[in-house]
Structure formats: C-alpha cells, structure tokens
C-alpha cells in the first residue's frame, strides 16, 4: 500500500506531526506516513483536493470555510483532532511601539495590553491624513485574522476601516516589518521571536492573553479518506494523540526544538524555537523575557478535542467580518466538520479520559477547572477572553448583536431564522 501523505507548514505548531514522524510513532501504530513540507495554506488545500495529500495540518478555519462554501476549492475536509492551543502573538514594529508608548503609556502598563494605545496612534494619523496603519496576518480564514480583529475591535478599532489588513506568508513577515511595508503582524512562532531578535519588532499581546487556551491548528483529512479508511484514520489519530502527549511534556520541549530545527521540518534556529516552546518569550529587543507556561499547549486541557463550540466560534467570526454573507446553521455546519465521536474512539483506545460534551461556553472559566469525562476527570485551563466577554455557542445571534463593530452585511434576522 502507498504511504499516507500528510502536509504541514514549517511553524512551531507542526510539532505533533513532525514528532510523530521523527520518533517512529506512526510506524508503531501500523501506519506508513510521509510528511510533505508545504509553503502555503492554499497549496495544502489544493493538494488535499486533488488527492496529492491524504491529511494535513490546517488552520482551524479552513475546513469550516470549505463547508460553508466560501473557499474557492471546496473539497470537504473533516477534523477529529486539534493539534494545539495558543501559540501566536501580535507584534508591531519598534517604530509603532514607540508611538504607542508616547500616545498612551498607561494603556501599555498592564497586561494583557489592549489596542487602546494603538487607537490613539490611528486617531492621530487620521487627523494628519496619513495613510492607515498596515497589519499583516497569514490567511483569510486564519485564527490570526480573527484574533487580530477581535483584539482591535475590543478597543473600538474597526479592522476594515481604521487599519489595512493584508496577508503575508510567515517567512516573509520579518522582512516586511524591516522594510517598512507593514507596521505589525499576527503570526505563529518562531516569527515573533525572530522579529524581536532582529531588533525590529515588539510583541504586544499573545494569543493566549487574547483568549486563554484558544483553538489553533487542526489535523484534517478529506471526508473521502475518513469514510473510506476509517481504520487508518483511527490509527493516525492514535499516533498523533500519543505524539501530542509527548510534545506537551515540558521536559520534552528541548527535544522538540531539536527535531523542528531540522530543515526537513521548520529549519529555524534551535535556540529560538526552544525558547518559545519552553514558554519563554522575549517581548522586545533588549527587553525582559516573559514566562508563559501555556504559550504552546499541545495536549493538556483536552487540547486535542475537536470542540464543536470552537468551530462555531470560528464560523461566528466569518459572519461578524462579512466573509460569510449568507446566513447558515452554525451548529450543523460545525458538526459536519468537527468529529468528536471519532476523537473519542481513538482516545478511549489509548485509555485517555475524554470529554462527554461537545460544546462548552467559552469565557466563563477564569482559572483552571475540572471537566468530568468518561474514564476520569480532565484538568482544564482557563478559557477567558481578555475583554471578559462570554461566548455561548447556543446563542450566536445574541452574541453577534452585542458586537458593536461588525460587517454591515450581517443580517441578524436571517441568521436567527436559520439558528433556532
């Protein structure tokens, strides 16, 4: 039989896939799998669509966008496993940081830092008729896009009117920041750390701070593969779960950095990769190093569970920002993509405790908490948003109605009709 081909993008959070291959975990679970290093999310999508890949690391929004019919190549993909939580950050140029410090030092004194200081800079630029601040993220359906927008909007900055948002691939971010093409970005590691090391960027806020333990990448396969090869799919999930548990252990993180430093995987400096993987993030050139033990979460807190509520949150962002113009049933769409029952089967066969619920209210736990699951209880992390908002996946219309800044295209009445 031909080996399975699994795509990934060279980023710190390809760790679970890289480790599963490098440590022979796939083979131990009876699978022949070959990883394929890809350079763009569009390539991953297209190679899955034509069958050149069987599965891949994907931005959590990508399978949902395809299911909602807003991605040009809509090969249906499903996910039964999340690869990680957190792991991104918003970094601005040292010039913009200096302007923020000047504009509103008080707003930068307490963490999590809000966009209040940035808003003052934007207001000043508008008064002087200067061109808008330009910020980059990595893909239209990327979590990076949504967390950047969430963070801006919470401070009253309209991401579609007050700034210019563009897409730049991660390996070009630091170059774009140095050459002055952009003023800031939201990206995964090691690119924030690299900008700080090069002396051109300052980390303003991490994804963890914006929304504690929020979803990041997923492992997706084509629906075709999931239906035709359920046994292989289960074996893949078991291998990835085992690898995720290994990657998550703090004592293994230096070894993870060593594996990722290999040019076959990320090919970046081992020390740079190791720092943020071990929860140490230098926030500014010559500045202090912050200790953020949950900067990267790969397994604990039920991180690998495909929460339907996470899928709904992402669909709600697509609605909020006008990517999804026609109303849809968010629960049914998320259920078509996220497959908790497949996760449970794999986790149970490894004796791991699994959540019995598919949805949870996000933003109500400000501290670690215990989730009762089958086969034992699960220690969960905080799931708070930095602006203290609560996301109830069963009432998305009320949630969107309370968003002051949102796409004018959003028709709440029509959405309500589809989500009773």
């Amino acid at each position, binding site marked *: 039989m031909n080996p399975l081909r699994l795509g990934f993008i060279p980023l710190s959070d390809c760790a679970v896939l890289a480790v599963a291959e490098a440590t022979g975990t796939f083979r131990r679970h009876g699978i022949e799998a070959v990883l394929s290093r890809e350079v763009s*999310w569009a390539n991953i999508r297209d*190679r899955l669509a034509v069958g050149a890949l069987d599965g891949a690391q994907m931005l959590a929004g990508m399978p949902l966008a395809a299911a909602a019919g807003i991605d040009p190549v809509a090969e249906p993909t499903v996910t039964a496993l999340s690869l990680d939580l957190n792991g991104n950050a918003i970094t601005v140029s040292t010039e913009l940081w200096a302007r923020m410090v000047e504009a509103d030092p008080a707003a930068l004194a307490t963490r999590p830092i809000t966009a209040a200081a940035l808003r003052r800079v934007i207001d000043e630029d508008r008064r002087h008729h200067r061109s808008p601040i330009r910020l980059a993220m990595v*893909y239209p359906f990327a979590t990076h896009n949504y967390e950047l927008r969430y963070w801006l909007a919470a401070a009253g900055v309209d991401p579609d009117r007050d700034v210019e948002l563009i897409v730049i691939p991660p390996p*070009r971010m630091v170059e774009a920041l140095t050459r002055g093409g952009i003023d800031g970005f939201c990206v995964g590691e090691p690119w924030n750390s690299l900008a700080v090391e090069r002396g051109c960027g300052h980390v303003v806020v991490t994804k963890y701070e914006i929304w504690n333990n929020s979803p990041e990448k997923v492992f997706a396969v084509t629906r075709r593969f999931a239906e035709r090869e359920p046994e292989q799919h289960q074996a893949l999930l078991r291998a990835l779960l085992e690898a995720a548990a290994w990657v998550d252990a703090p004592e293994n993180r230096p070894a993870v950095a060593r594996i990722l430093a290999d040019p076959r995987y990320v090919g970046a400096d081992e020390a740079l990769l190791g720092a943020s993987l071990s929860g140490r993030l230098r926030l500014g050139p010559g500045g202090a190093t912050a200790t953020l033990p949950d900067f990267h979460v790969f397994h604990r807190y039920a991180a690998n569970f495909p929460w339907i509520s996470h899928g709904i949150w992402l669909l709600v962002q697509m609605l909020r920002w006008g*990517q999804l113009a026609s109303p849809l049933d968010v629960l049914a769409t998320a259920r078509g993509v996220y497959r908790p029952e497949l996760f449970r089967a794999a986790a149970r066969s490894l004796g791991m405790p699994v959540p019995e619920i598919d949805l949870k209210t996000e933003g109500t736990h400000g501290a670690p908490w215990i989730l009762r699951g089958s086969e034992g209880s699960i220690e969960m992390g905080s799931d708070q948003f930095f602006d203290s908002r609560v996301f109830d996946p069963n009432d998305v219309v009320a949630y969107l109605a309370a968003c002051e800044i949102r796409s004018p295209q959003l028709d709440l009445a029509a959405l309500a009709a589809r989500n009773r």
Partner: protein
Amino acid sequence: MQPPIRVLIVDENAGRAGLIEAGLVQSGCEVVAQLMGRADLQAKINEIQPDVVVIDMECPDRDTLEDMSRITRTQPVATVMFVDRSDSESIRAAVAAGVSAYVVGGLSVERVRPVLELAIARFTQFQALQRELASARSSLEERKLVERAKGILMKSRGLSEDEAFHLLRRMAMDRKTRLAAIAREVIAAAELLL
C-alpha cells in the same frame, strides 16, 4: 480587436519564467512583469494592475493572492479570483505541474483559461527537462563508478576489462541490486583494504 491580456509572472526560477514569457508573448499576451516572490506582492499588483497573475506554487506568496478577493473599505484594491474555481480537472493539472493562476479585476475566466493552460504546459515541460538533466547527470556518475570498480578488479584479480565487467554484473544480479551500487561497494572495500 481586444487588447492583449496583461500577465504578471511570479516565479522563483528565472529560467522557467523566461520559458513561460516566451510562450505567452507568442500567443499574443503581454507580460507586464516577472517577479520573484516578495513581501510587498499585494502593493505591486495594485501598482502594475495585471489581468492575470501566474504563480509558481513553491512561492508562499500564493496565500497573499488568496486574500485579495476581500473588499476593504479603506482603499480600492484589485479583486483577485482563483482561476479554476469550478474546474477540478484543471486544478488537478495545475497542481501536478506546480503552477497556479489568479484573475485580477473583471476579466472572464474563459478568456484567461488559455493563459493557465499555457503555464501548465510550460511548467510540465520544465519539470521534464529538469528530470532528464538529473538522470543524465546521475547516469554519468554511475558510469564513472563502474569504470573505477572495473579498474580495481582488473588490478587486484588480474582480470581483463570484459571479465571485470561480467563479474560486477553477476554480483549485481545475484544480490538483486544495481550495477552502480555494487561498484560503490567494491570501491569502498578497496579503500578500506588499501
């Protein structure tokens, strides 16, 4: 007469870009620029205003084009559309060849399809050329190895050139491996012993 289709080529490989440009110009297109992947691709597209962007799939900048269909309220930007939205066969061909194309502005997909087809053909042609070159290079390497191994056997066992070659071939057949692999072993063993 319709004005020629204005094409922007984004390719890390200048040789291949030249090949595509020649083909496009021959078929009546105007190639407005050839670029390597770059951080300011979006600004460049807004400046150049091509009708079509042909992009090498090895450029991470493809994701930048994926986002350009979004309408922003700050300033008018070129609208970009993936050429092969509805046509799975052309996606397959494009992915296999390693090239992708995007329509900028309002040009109909039908009018630009020949551009994509030409790009696919040239990418495939280039791939075949690279493969031929690589296999020619490796067969030359292999011939050199076999010559050296033959020389070692002739000297150490007092064989004629023909006998040395037949011995190597028999060893390769017995062990179900390639002649070059056996030659490499003979050379390694000789280096170890001498």
